[in-house]
């Protein structure tokens, strides 16, 4: 059949479409964003009217996917690793409800923090929620797994966690498609109480989930995604999880001399790991992420055969793996090229020339002068780049929504006025609830919702805030006199400084909304218009 050149993300999207998915739910986040974008651009998805709109955040997305599963259709929800924290309540409880239509939760992790605040390993969530985890090594496996995960989910009555990392998400390779499966027709759960997690029912459900554990383990041992590969040299046995397998093979172009267990489905395939232990003198555990299963195999007392991995220093404790690190752990020498010349300068990302956030920071710097530094709580978005020179404008960036709530806490501690800087998409994601806290207490904070009418950092996806910010803020109870609009342009600098000064003096909650469309998004829309006209 036809071979497509796809990013790991795109392979997952195509696999899910071909696997009978009825709805894709997501909030953007690197490196997961391209999955939903692919579904949105897919002709087949459009012809089938698959659900493919962005959600307000990862929690609402996950809950919608659970709802679709309840109604007996196949759903996938996609997010970056920190999004799983936001969705965690729904995620963990979905393991207890079980599924009706197949439910796939995709988490894209970002070891080495290329575009993230941390490098948490989503497999922990799958592990403690007691659900199966799939971790593809190649784009083809990513496709095959997305294709077959719905069925696995239905068979095991559990959501399936599909976990990838940046390298696979954003690397392209040839992918062969399978025949497209029809969508499920939809039917209510056989047990009408399955999704009611009252303690009495939840206890029953949870027992069933525990009873399924040996079945899941067995499924891993039988899975085509897990393989035992015999080597000739029994000095070392390797457990290679996900894409770590590729790095092992890369180092042995003529075949690996050692026994290898390729792991792409969890719980760990017990029989294969036991065989490896029996066959080999020492073990090497390779995980793209935190040493979750190394810890399990090693055990607290670590009294068995010598085990190498991230916990004994054979590999670094942090960061993504790569061919050199794995070579080093295997005792293979690599001849590096020339060193990087010392004169090279770093080239950090920066706010685009002409970006509206620049004008906001320029005005804020002046307005804040009388109050002193250290009081601007920022959020996550392009405006976080205000942390870098020449702006040096912000003092925090923790998690989505935290700008408002941290400002509240700091003001409670006496840091008045406190300022929060948040984007329109982030405000919708998790800022609204915090703002209500501030309204109820009339906190002496100034919330700047820097509205570029897009989700800029992740590539300009549509923001739910569009045209609604004023009404939302007013509806939450901010007094109209303290909801101030401004036009973030150089020529309005003086006016904007004045507005900020007035609101900083106000001893209660204020919201300032500077609105000007992201120049990248505007340019893209223009190009699209131009193209449409040409046709």
């Amino acid at each position, binding site marked *: 059949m036809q*071979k497509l*050149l796809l*990013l790991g993300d795109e392979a997952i999207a195509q696999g899910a479409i071909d696997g009978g998915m009825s709805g894709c739910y997501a909030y953007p986040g*690197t*490196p997961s*964003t*391209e999955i939903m974008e692919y579904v949105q651009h897919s002709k087949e998805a459009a012809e089938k009217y698959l659900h493919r709109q962005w959600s307000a955040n990862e929690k609402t997305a996950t809950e919608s996917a659970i709802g679709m599963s309840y109604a007996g259709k196949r759903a996938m929800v996609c997010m970056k690793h920190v999004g799983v924290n936001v969705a965690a309540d729904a995620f963990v409880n979905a393991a207890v409800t079980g599924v009706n239509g197949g439910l796939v939760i995709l988490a894209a992790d970002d070891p080495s923090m*290329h*575009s993230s605040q941390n490098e948490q390993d989503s497999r922990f969530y799958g592990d403690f929620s007691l659900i199966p985890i799939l971790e593809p090594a190649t784009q083809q496996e990513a496709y095959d797994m997305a294709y077959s995960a719905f069925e696995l989910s239905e068979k095991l009555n559990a959501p399936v966690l599909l976990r990838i990392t940046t*390298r*696979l998400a*954003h*690397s*392209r*390779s*040839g992918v062969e498609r399978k025949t497209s499966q029809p969508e499920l027709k939809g039917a209510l759960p056989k047990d009408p109480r399955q999704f009611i997690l009252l303690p009495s029912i939840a206890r029953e459900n949870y027992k069933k989930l525990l009873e399924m554990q040996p079945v899941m383990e067995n499924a891993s041992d039988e899975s085509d995604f897990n393989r035992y590969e015999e080597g000739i040299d029994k000095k070392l046995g390797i457990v290679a999880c996900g*894409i770590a*397998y*590729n*790095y092992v*093979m*890369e180092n042995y172009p003529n075949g690996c001399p050692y026994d290898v267990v390729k792991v792409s489905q969890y719980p760990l395939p017990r029989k294969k790991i036991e065989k490896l232990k029996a066959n080999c003198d020492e073990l090497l555990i390779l995980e793209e992420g935190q040493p979750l299963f190394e810890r399990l195999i090693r055990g607290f007392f670590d009294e068995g055969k010598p085990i190498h991995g991230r916990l004994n220093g054979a590999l670094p404790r942090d960061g993504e793996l*790569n*061919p*050199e690190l794995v*070579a080093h752990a295997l005792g293979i020498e*690599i*001849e*590096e*090229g*020339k*060193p*990087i*010349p010392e*004169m*090279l*300068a*770093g*080239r*950090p*990302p*920066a*706010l*685009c020339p002409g970006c509206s956030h620049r004008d906001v920071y320029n005005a804020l710097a002046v307005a804040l002068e009388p109050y002193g530094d250290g009081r601007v709580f920022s959020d996550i978005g*392009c405006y976080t*780049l205000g942390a870098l020179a020449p702006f040096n404008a912000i003092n925090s960036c923790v998690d989505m929504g935290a700008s408002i709530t941290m400002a509240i806490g700091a003001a409670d501690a006496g840091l008045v006025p406190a300022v929060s800087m948040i984007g329109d998409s982030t405000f919708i994601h998790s800022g609204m609830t915090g703002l209500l806290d501030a309204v109820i207490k009339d906190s002496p904070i100034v919330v700047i919702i820097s509205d570029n009418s897009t989700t800029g*950092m*992740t*590539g300009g996806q549509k923001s739910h805030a569009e045209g609604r910010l004023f009404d939302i803020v007013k509806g939450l109870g901010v007094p109209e006199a303290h909801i101030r609009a401004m036009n973030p342009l150089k020529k309005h600098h003086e006016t904007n400084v004045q507005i900020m000064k007035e609101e900083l003096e106000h001893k209660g909650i204020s919201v300032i909304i500077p609105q000007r469309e992201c120049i990248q998004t505007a340019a893209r829309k223009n190009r699209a218009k131009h193209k449409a006209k040409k046709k």
Partner: protein
Amino acid sequence: MKIDIILAGVGGQGILTIAAAIGTAAVNKGLYLKQAEVHGMSQRGGDVQSNLRISDKPIHSDLIAKGGADMILSVEPMESLRYLPFLKKGGYLITSTKPFINIPNYPELEYLMKEIKAMDHHVAIDADQIAKDEVGSARASNIVMLGAASPFLKMEMSELEDALKELFGRKGEEVVEMNIKALRAGRKMAEK
């Protein structure tokens, strides 16, 4: 046949288009391909690279190991040097000499050029100028660089031209012609 290339530049300079052109040509030849890209934060004016691997046998790693690249193909002089540890002994450094200065501490171009010229195998051309002279727009400078790399790609010019037709076909005959011209101009410079 196996070739590992590191593409380098600054976010927005079009290295992914170069990757797509080589990739399309490779796939049309029935070769295996892996191409790791940088998406996300660094695309905002930061340094970006792409690992492009092509082979007639299945490829394992998405990343090229240090000391493993046959070629660094860069659209910017400073960026061409950032990945030197990845370049094989005897590998090619092919770069545009036109600096993209969006930082206050950009090094003296003269020093950068000294480093580039110290490489055993290098091709250094002003792709912007060539693109302007030949096709009237610096926008095609990335394709000029593809042309400059083409003698070392183990591919026929016609295969690359077909790939450009495939990639730019939707944008009309004019755009295709412009890019093919840019490709040939780059090739000519490299052969000098």
